[in-house]
C-alpha cells in the first residue's frame, strides 16, 4: 500500500526533475551555470497560468491530443515497476498494454498536429509515425528477452527479477539489449541524436515541431506528458542497466531515484557529446537497434 | 468371270494413279467417270444375275459415269477457270505418296482375317488404297472441283468394300451408295455452282476468308 502511494507520488512529482538534470548537465558541459534543477517545474506552472491560443483550423481533435498523451503516459506509469518494487497494476501480458499505450498517445498527438493544417506539424507527425513504428520491434525484442530471463509474462515480474546474477549469466545478451534500448529511449523521447528539443529549426525536428501550435496549459500538459514518458521509459531502462536492489524497501526507493538521476546525467552527457544525426540516418540507427535486440533475444532463447 | 474382277480392281488402282498424276482437270474428271463405270460393272461380275442387280448397275453407271462428270465439266466450263489442277504438292511426290499408301493398304489388308471366298481377291486393299487416294487428292489439290473429285474417289473406295457385303446386307449397301450419290451429285453440284456464281472461280484457296486471324 505504502509502496503504491510512493510509486504514484514519484510518478507525479519526479519527471520534470529529469529534464532539469539533463539541462544542468549540458550546461555544465558547455561551461555555463545553467538553469536551476527545478526550472522545468517553473516552466510548466507558468504555462498553466497563461491564456491559450487555438488555431482557427483546429477542431476538438486538437484538444484531445495533449489529454490522451498525458493519460496514456500516466497509465503506463502505473504499469511499470520502480526499482525493486512491483507496480500497482500488474498482470500477465501487461507489457503489451504498456507498449501499445504509447501507440495510443502517439496516434492522438499526431492527429492533433495534423489538425492544425500546418505543413511543419504535418511533417513532424509523418516523421514521428515512421520512426516510432521502426522503434516498436526493439521494445518487443527487449520484452521477449526479459520475460525469457525472468520467466515471467508481466512487467513487474520480468523487471524486478533482473539482478546482477542474471547479468553474470547473460551478460552478452543484456549488453546488446542495453545498447538497443538506449537508442530507443532516446528516439522515443526525441532526444539528441534523433531530435533536438531546443532548436527551432523546424525542418530538422520531430516532436517539438508537432506542438508548435500548442500554447498555455495545452503546452504545459504536453511537456509534462513528455517528461512523464521519459520517466516511464527511463524506469524500464534503469531496470535493465542498473539492476541493483538491497531488499530494504526504503533503500530501494533511494536507489531507484539515484539511478534515474544517473540516467538523466548520462542522457545529458550524450546530448552534449553528440551532434544531431541527419534524418536519413535515423531509420538506419533504429534498425540497428532492432538488430541488436534481436540478437540478444536469439542469445537467450536458443 | 469372277477372275476378271481382280483385273478390274487393278484397273481401278491404275486410275487412282492416273487421277493423281494428271495435270488436266477435265481429264481427271473423265478418269473418275471411267472408274465409276468400272465400279458399276463390278457387281455384275461377282454376283449372280438378277433384275435388281441390273437396276443397280444401270443407276450406278449412269450417275457415276455420266451425270456427275457432266455436271462437273459444266461447272468447269461455266466458271471458265484455268484447266490446270494446280496442286499444292507436285505430281511426282503425290504419285510416290499414292504408291506408298497403296503398299500400306495391302499390308494392312494382309493383317485382317477374310472369308475363304474373298481370300484370293484384292477388294480390301483396293478399297483402302482408293480411299487413301481420295484423301490424297482432297489434301493436295487446290480447286474445289478437284476436291469433289477426291471425294468421289473416296466414295468409290467405300463402294468397293461395299461389294463384299452386297449379298449379306444389300439394302444397307445400296442405301449408303445412293445417299453418297445424292450428296456427291446434287448437293455438291449445287454448292459448286453457287460458289462459281459467288466467286467466279472454283479455287478453294480463295475460300479462306473464314479463319482465325
Amino acid at each position: 500500500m505504502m509502496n503504491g502511494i510512493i510509486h504514484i507520488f514519484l510518478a507525479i512529482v519526479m519527471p520534470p526533475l529529469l529534464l532539469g538534470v539533463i539541462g544542468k548537465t549540458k550546461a555544465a558541459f558547455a561551461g555555463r551555470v545553467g538553469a536551476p534543477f527545478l526550472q522545468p517545474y517553473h516552466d510548466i506552472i507558468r504555462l498553466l497560468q497563461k491564456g491559450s491560443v487555438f488555431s482557427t483550423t483546429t477542431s476538438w481533435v486538437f484538444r484531445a491530443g495533449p489529454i490522451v498523451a498525458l493519460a496514456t503516459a500516466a497509465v503506463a506509469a502505473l504499469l511499470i515497476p520502480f526499482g525493486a518494487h512491483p507496480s500497482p497494476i500488474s498482470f500477465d501480458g501487461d507489457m503489451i498494454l504498456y507498449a501499445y499505450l504509447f501507440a495510443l498517445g502517439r496516434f492522438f498527438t499526431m492527429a492533433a498536429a495534423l489538425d492544425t493544417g500546418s505543413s511543419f506539424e504535418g511533417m513532424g507527425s509523418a516523421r514521428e509515425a515512421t520512426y516510432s513504428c521502426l522503434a516498436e520491434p526493439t521494445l518487443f525484442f527487449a520484452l521477449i528477452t526479459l520475460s525469457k530471463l525472468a520467466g515471467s509474462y508481466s512487467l513487474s515480474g520480468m523487471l524486478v527479477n533482473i539482478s546482477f546474477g542474471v547479468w553474470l549469466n547473460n551478460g552478452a545478451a543484456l549488453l546488446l539489449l542495453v545498447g538497443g534500448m538506449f537508442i530507443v529511449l532516446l528516439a522515443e523521447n526525441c532526444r539528441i541524436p534523433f531530435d533536438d528539443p531546443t532548436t527551432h529549426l523546424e525542418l530538422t525536428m520531430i516532436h517539438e515541431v508537432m506542438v508548435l501550435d500548442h500554447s498555455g496549459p495545452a503546452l504545459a500538459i504536453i511537456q509534462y506528458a513528455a517528461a512523464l514518458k521519459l520517466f516511464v521509459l527511463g524506469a524500464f531502462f534503469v531496470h535493465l542497466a542498473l539492476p541493483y536492489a538491497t531488499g530494504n524497501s526504503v533503500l530501494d526507493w533511494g536507489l531507484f531515484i539515484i539511478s534515474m538521476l544517473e540516467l538523466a546525467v548520462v542522457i545529458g552527457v550524450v546530448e552534449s557529446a553528440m551532434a544531431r544525426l541527419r534524418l536519413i540516418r535515423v531509420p538506419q540507427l533504429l534498425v540497428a537497434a532492432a538488430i541488436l535486440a534481436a540478437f540478444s533475444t536469439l542469445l537467450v532463447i536458443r | 468371270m469372277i477372275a476378271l474382277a481382280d483385273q478390274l480392281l487393278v484397273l481401278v488402282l491404275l486410275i487412282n494413279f492416273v487421277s493423281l498424276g494428271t495435270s488436266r482437270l477435265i481429264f481427271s474428271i473423265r478418269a473418275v467417270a471411267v472408274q465409276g463405270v468400272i465400279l458399276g460393272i463390278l457387281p455384275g461380275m461377282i454376283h449372280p444375275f438378277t433384275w435388281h442387280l441390273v437396276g443397280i448397275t444401270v443407276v450406278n453407271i449412269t450417275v457415276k459415269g455420266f451425270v456427275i462428270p457432266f455436271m462437273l465439266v459444266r461447272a468447269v466450263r461455266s466458271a471458265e477457270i484455268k484447266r490446270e489442277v494446280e496442286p499444292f504438292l507436285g505430281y511426282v511426290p503425290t504419285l510416290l505418296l499414292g504408291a506408298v499408301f497403296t503398299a500400306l493398304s495391302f499390308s494392312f489388308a494382309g493383317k485382317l482375317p477374310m472369308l475363304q471366298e474373298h481370300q484370293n481377291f484384292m477388294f480390301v486393299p483396293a478399297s483402302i488404297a482408293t480411299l487413301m487416294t481420295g484423301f490424297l487428292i482432297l489434301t493436295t489439290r487446290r480447286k474445289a472441283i478437284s476436291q469433289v473429285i477426291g471425294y468421289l474417289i473416296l466414295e468409290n473406295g467405300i463402294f468397293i468394300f461395299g461389294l463384299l457385303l452386297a449379298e449379306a446386307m444389300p439394302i444397307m449397301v445400296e442405301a449408303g451408295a445412293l445417299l453418297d450419290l445424292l450428296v456427291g451429285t446434287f448437293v455438291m453440284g449445287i454448292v459448286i455452282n453457287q460458289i462459281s456464281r459467288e466467286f467466279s472461280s472454283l479455287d478453294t484457296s480463295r475460300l479462306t476468308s473464314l479463319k482465325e486471324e
Partner: protein
Amino acid sequence: MYSLLQGAFDPALVALVAALVIGCAGIPGLFFRKPGSGQIIAAAGTILAAMAGVPASLQLLFSHTTSTYLLEWSLPFGPCEFVIDPLSAFFLLPVFIVSAAGSLFAIGYWPAAEHRATERGLTFFYGLLASSMAILLMARNGVFFIMVWEVMALSAYFLIVTEHELENVRRAGIVYLIATHTGTVALFVYFSLLAAQTGSFLLPAAGSLSALSPYAAAIALAAFIGFGAKAGIMPLHIWLPSAHANAPSHVSAVMSGVMLKMGLYGIFRTLTFFYDPPLLWGAVLTVCGITSALLGIAFAVAQRDLKRLLACSSIENVGIITTGLGVALLGVSSHITVLVYLGMAGALLHILNHSFFKPLLFLGSGAIIHAAGTREMNLMGGLGKGMPRVALLFLVGSVSICGIPPLNGFVSEFLLYLGFFSQLKAGSLVYLVFLAPVLALVGGLAVVAFTKLYGSVFLGTPRSSEAAHPHEAGVTMLAPMAFFALLCLLIGAVPQLALRLVSPAILSSYPQTALAAFPAEYGAIMGRLSLAGILLLSAAVVVTLLWRWRLGKAPAASAPTWGCGYQRGTSRIQYGATSFSELAVSVFNGIMLQRVERPKLTGLFPRVSRCSDVPTETLLDRIILPLFSMTGMLFSFLHRLQHGLMQVYMLYIFAALFILMLWAH
C-alpha cells in the same frame, strides 16, 4: 426475445428462415414501379431477419449443441444436410449484423431516386449475397456448398460492377471474377478429393480424418488455394484491392467484413477435419499469415485511394487472423492446448472485431465519398468540420483497427501476443515468439496508415474545392456506423464477454481445449484490461477537468495556424496523404513499389505541370498480367491452326485417322 425463442422456435430453424428472408428481401423491389419503396422493404426485412437471427445464433453458440436439418433434394450427390454447430453460429453473427447495417446504410447512400437504373439490381444481389453467405455456413454437403459458394461469388461480382460504365470498375470486376472462378475450380478439386477420401460428399466431422491419408496434403492445398483466394491471403489477394475500392461502399463493407471471412471459415472448417495435422501446415499458415499482415499494411500505407487503403488493411487483418489460426494449428499438431486456445481465440475474436470496425470504416468512407465526391485522399481535408459525427465515428474505427487500447482491435491482438509469448518457457516452438515484434511492426505501420487516412481526410483544411463544403451524413447512414462504433467500444470495454463469445466455437472444433480452464484464466486477464481501460478514461477525465479549470481562469483566443514565419500559406502546402506516407514508403521501398508519373518537360520554358507518386499492385502489375499477355500471345499464334484452308483441315482428319489406326494396331 431470448426466452421467447427458447420456448417457441428451434433457433436453427429461426436462423435458416432469417437467412432466406434476407435472400428474398430484394425481390419485391424488382416489381415496384415507383423507386425507393423496394429498397425500404428490403432494409426492413433484412433488419428484422437479423434481429431474429442474431439471438438465434447466440443461443446456438452458447447451447453448445449441433442441430441438423436434412433437405430433400434430387441431385445425385448424397443427402444435403444443414448443420449449425457453434463454429457456424459464431460466423453467422457478423453475417446478420453487417448485412442488416449495410442495407440500412444503402437507403441514404444509394438512394433509389437518384440511381433508378442500378438500385433494383443492387438491392436484389445484396440480399442474395448476404443470405448465400448465411446458408453457406449451414451447408454440409460439398456440392450444395459449392453451389451456394458460387451464388455468393457471382452476386458479389454483380455488386462490384454496379457502375459498369466506368472502365476501372469493369476491370476490377473481371479480375475479381477470374480470381474467384479459379478459386472455385480449386474447390472442385477439394470436394472431389474429399469424396474420394470419405466416399461421400458430406463434409467429414471434426477430427475424423488423418493427415497421413493419401489425399490429405492435396486436400489441404486445394482448400488453401480455393478458400485463401476468397479470403485474400497473400499471394492470392490480387483481386481484393480493386474490387473493394470500386464496389459501392456498403457492398465493400459486406465483402470485406463478411465475405472474406467465408474463405477463412472454409479454412477453419477444413482444418478441423484432421486430428493430426503436420507441423508444416501450421508453419505455412503462420508464415503466409504474418507475411500478408506485414505486406498488406505496407501496401495500405502507400495508397492514395481512400477505399484501396481500407482494402489493403483488410489483407493485413486477414493475415493476422491467419497467423492466429496457424499458431493454433501448430498447437494442435504439437499437443499444446494453450496455443490452440489462444490462437483460435485471437483469430476468431479478430474475425469478429474486423467485421465490426472494417464495415464501420467502409461505411464511413461511403459517407466521405458522398461529401467530397472523390476517393483521392490528396484532394480531401478538413471534412471533420463539415461532418463532425462521421469524423467521430470514423476516429473510433481507425483507433480500433490499429489495435490500440482501449478498443476491440487491441483485445484480439493481445490474445495473439499471449499466444506468441506462451511458449517462451516451454522448449518447443519457442521461436513463435519472433512473431511478436513483426506484429508490433504491423501495428506501428497501421498507425501510420490510419493517421495518414484520418489526418488527410478529416483534419487540416480542404485541399480542393470539392472537399470545401461537405455535408453531414443522414441518419440512415449514421445509425449503422454508430452501432458498429458502439460494438467496438463494448468489446474494448468488457473483453471478458468477447472471450465468452468465442470459447464455444473453439471448444466445438477442438474439444481438447475443454480440459484446461482457459476461459476463466484469460477472462481474469481480460478483466485487468478493462480495468486499465477505466483508469485510462478516468485519467483523461481528470486531465480534461484540470484543463477546463485553467481555461476558465485564462480565456482562450483564436488565431490562424502559425506559418512559421511564412505568410502566404495555402491549403496545398499542408502535408497531403502522399507526402505523409512518403517517408515510411521510402523506408519500406522495394515492398511498396511506387510509379512516379511525371510529365515530359519540353522547351525552354515548360508549362506548369505536376508529377505524382502512384502506388502499384506489385504482384498483379509486375507478374500476373505480363504472364497473361504472354499466354495470350502464344495462343493467338496457335490460332493459325485454324488456317481457313480446306486441304489442311482434310489433313487433320487424315492424320487423326492414321494415328488412331497406328494406336489401335
